[in-house]
């Protein structure tokens, strides 16, 4: 029995490492691509590691990159557990950033201690609005959320372009002939405090704290219980007297809110002003999509999403460094990220298979003669169909 426990913990540990193996495998394929491009893979991956973990600054950049992924990932944990697919992270992040920035620009004199929390809240609300709309459309008009959130992304971008080149434009730019579509820089006292003398800012801490909060929300509160119940079985939920439609709205609204907060954090912690190049990515860096990936890597578990976003943030930061060092086209990096995503998500099945095998083996080892009493089936193993 004791021996079995041991091997069990060991193999669980191996499972935890699976995404890492998968990433390595993907990088293996990437190595071939790099060779074909005439670059030295070792040098390249050395650069990747250095870029992601090589120095305090590198680590800080990695965490800074991971922060919006984590925040958005948390929202995704909520909505996906409510069986609502939110592809609208990009738009929600933008709107959250816009609302928070607008507030910051409106009261440049106010002290940071007042403004920062207010701005974060406003970003949260902005995102909530942009997520709540498709939520309501799904709940009350049966408009598929995948469609509406994709559309809402495009709308948010144009809204941003309009505001940054008009109502919210930097007065200095407004005066110029070439009116760069950016807001004025936010007052210095609004900058999120740095945790250490690097780009690492308070936002990272906020995100981690919120991860714990979301864990509580989902498994320790009535609201979380309802959202999960509706996500798993709307019929039974209705019989139990739960207002299904409202939970759907909440799920998307909360999901959007976290994306909105990510936007606010990005502006107040990193950019300190909003600028548009006409695309969503210019501001979000595709965090709206990468956040989904991070959350799913984290098995839709808020705490699992923390390391997942860190891994993904490291990859993104390290990849840019790689591009700089070996001077390969940036395109190869994007392709590489794609491979990593595919490999990691494909590795999931092995974890599941091993989970089941463990149970069966454990059972056989107990049943030399005759069948044993049922032993715990995997309780809430995520990802199992």
């Amino acid at each position, binding site marked *: 029995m004791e021996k079995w426990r041991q091997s069990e913990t060991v193999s669980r540990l191996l499972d935890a490492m699976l995404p890492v193996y998968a990433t390595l495998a993907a990088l293996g394929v990437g190595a071939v691509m790099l060779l074909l491009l005439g670059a030295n893979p070792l040098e390249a991956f050395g650069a990747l590691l250095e870029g992601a973990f090589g120095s305090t600054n590198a680590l800080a950049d990695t965490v800074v990159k991971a922060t919006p992924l984590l925040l958005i990932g948390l929202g995704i944990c909520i909505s996906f557990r409510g069986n609502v697919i939110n592809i609208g992270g990009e738009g929600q992040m933008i709107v959250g950033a816009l609302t928070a920035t607008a507030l910051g620009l409106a009261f440049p004199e106010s002290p940071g201690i007042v403004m920062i929390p207010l701005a974060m809240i406003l970003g949260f609300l902005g995102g909530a609005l942009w997520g709540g709309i498709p939520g309501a459309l799904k709940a009350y008009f049966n408009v598929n959320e995948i469609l509406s959130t994709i559309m809402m992304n495009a709308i948010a971008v144009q809204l941003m372009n309009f505001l940054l080149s008009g109502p919210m434009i930097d007065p200095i730019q407004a005066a110029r002939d070439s009116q760069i579509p950016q807001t004025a820089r936010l007052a210095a006292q609004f900058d999120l405090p740095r945790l250490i003398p690097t780009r690492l800012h308070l936002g990272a801490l906020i995100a981690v704290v919120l991860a714990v909060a979301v864990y509580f929300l989902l*498994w*320790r*509160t*009535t*609201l979380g*219980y*309802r959202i*999960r*119940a509706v996500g*798993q*079985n709307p*019929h*039974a*939920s*209705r*019989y*139990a*007297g*739960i*207002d299904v439609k409202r939970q759907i709205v909440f799920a998307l609204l909360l999901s959007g809110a976290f994306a909105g907060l990510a936007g606010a954090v990005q502006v107040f912690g990193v950019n300190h002003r909003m600028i548009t190049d006409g695309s969503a990515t210019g501001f979000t860096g595709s965090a709206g999509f990468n956040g989904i990936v991070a959350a799913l890597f984290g098995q839709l578990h808020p705490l699992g999403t923390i390391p997942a976003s860190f891994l993904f943030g490291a990859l993104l930061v390290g990849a840019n460094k790689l591009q700089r060092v070996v001077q390969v086209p940036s395109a190869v990096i994007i392709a590489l990220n794609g491979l990593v995503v595919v490999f990691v998500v494909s590795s999931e099945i092995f974890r599941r298979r091993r*989970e*089941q095998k463990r*149970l*069966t083996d454990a*059972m*056989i080892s107990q*049943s030399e003669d*005759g*069948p*044993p009493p*049922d*032993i*715990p*089936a*995997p*309780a*809430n193993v995520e990802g199992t169909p």
Partner: protein
Amino acid sequence: MTEKKTLPSGHSQILQMEMHGITKRFPGVVANFKVDFDVRAGEVHALLGENGAGKSTLMKVLYGMYQPDEGQIKLDGTPVTIHSPVDSIKQGIGMIHQHFMLVESLTVAENVALGMPSTRGPLTDLKKVSARIYELAEIYGLRVDPDAYVWQLAVGQQQRVEIIKALYRGAALLILDEPTAVLTPQEVDEFFVTMRQMVTDGHALIFISHKLHEVLDISNRVSVLRDGEMIGTIPTQGATKTQLAEMMVGRPLGEIKIRQQSKTSQTRLVLQDVCSQSDRGTPALKNVSFEVCAGEILGVAGVSGNGQKELAEVITGMRPVTSGKIILDTQDVTGKSPKVLMGRSLSYIPEERMRDGMIKEFTVAENLILREHDQMPFSRRGFLDLKAISEHSEGLIQDYNVKTPSLETTVKSLSGGNIQKLVLAREISRRPHTLIAAQPTRGLDIGATEYVHHRLLEQREAGTATLLISEDLDEIMALSDRIAVIFEGEIMGVVPRDQATAEQIGLLMAGVAETAAK
């Protein structure tokens, strides 16, 4: 050995099928352990066992849906390997699944044609298929409309579609996994006619059921599984209910204790001229009126698909009434939400427990608080009190002796009987004034059925007003104080138990109105 003849369905006979030492494990469960089983042409071999005994698993192994961990299958003496249903169908094996394998969004004909070669090559030949369906329906007395969508059919009709599907594929050996669980007495009789027809034609039939009288009625041999192991095979000749029951549960069973006349007091639930529509917008309930008093069980008998589902749903607030009134404890609750009704201490045991009663991905504990998750003591200011929840659940698991590894086990890995016990535990532990029980023992083994009946009577003694909606006439007769019969959405009559005879109720169920009862 007699040489094989060809069956009306076109396939040649399977004279003998043998399974040797079949073992099948699932994560955490040994579903079958070294099981031997066989069936011969021209016989019905019944397979008995409590919920979770491993019957369906054994049959799915035979049908190629599961690969056995150990063991061998022989057809007419030659070992065969069956990788997938493709192979078993080729071999002439057909299976009617306990949980129907129908595509609801397709028509009957389309479901039958699915996966079969078409006479028009790549194009569907639904006309020919329909014709063939009529032929088979003719031979075996199975009436269905080939052009109807499956979602439009009552369970009984869906059952027929399943059988036709198997026959259409020329099944010589037919596995019937709890086919009668969803049928009414009349339908069961028709179904047995069909089965006997098949046997005389030379089919080999495997018949799984929890209803012992059916087994004794139709089968030639009976085998009993318990906890995945084969307990024994005996000829039906000379076997008795109690003997089989005890083989199944491994202990003697008590009789339902004699019921003293219920002490009827004030009325709890009143329906006045309630009308309602089905999902398809057709009238499903027509001026339904009756009342249920505290401490009595009103049984609603009826052939499946006559409005029972809608009846339960309007009372529980899941379906709007088009006219009429519903009164609960003297207050008009027409059109109130399920939440409000629950507040008025109405409890509900839904017909489709897995769909409407339980959240199968949730843990046992989470499911046990489904109705009261937002009330003290489970929820304080929006936060769940896990301690209170697990204490509550622990208690219920004890009281209702639910077999579960732990409170954290997800419900989906429990057997049907235990899941129903959880539903009962949740609904009854609320000490409801009024209880709606829809098909509370469907698909349950005798052990579990006995248990449910016992609990329902207990509630009756406790003064609960119970509306028992069941298609199992024996059940109705055994438990009800009064019996209402529903036919095509109308209450044909309400008869006191002691004046009621099975024949009379049967007639009413068939829609033959009887003025005396009205």
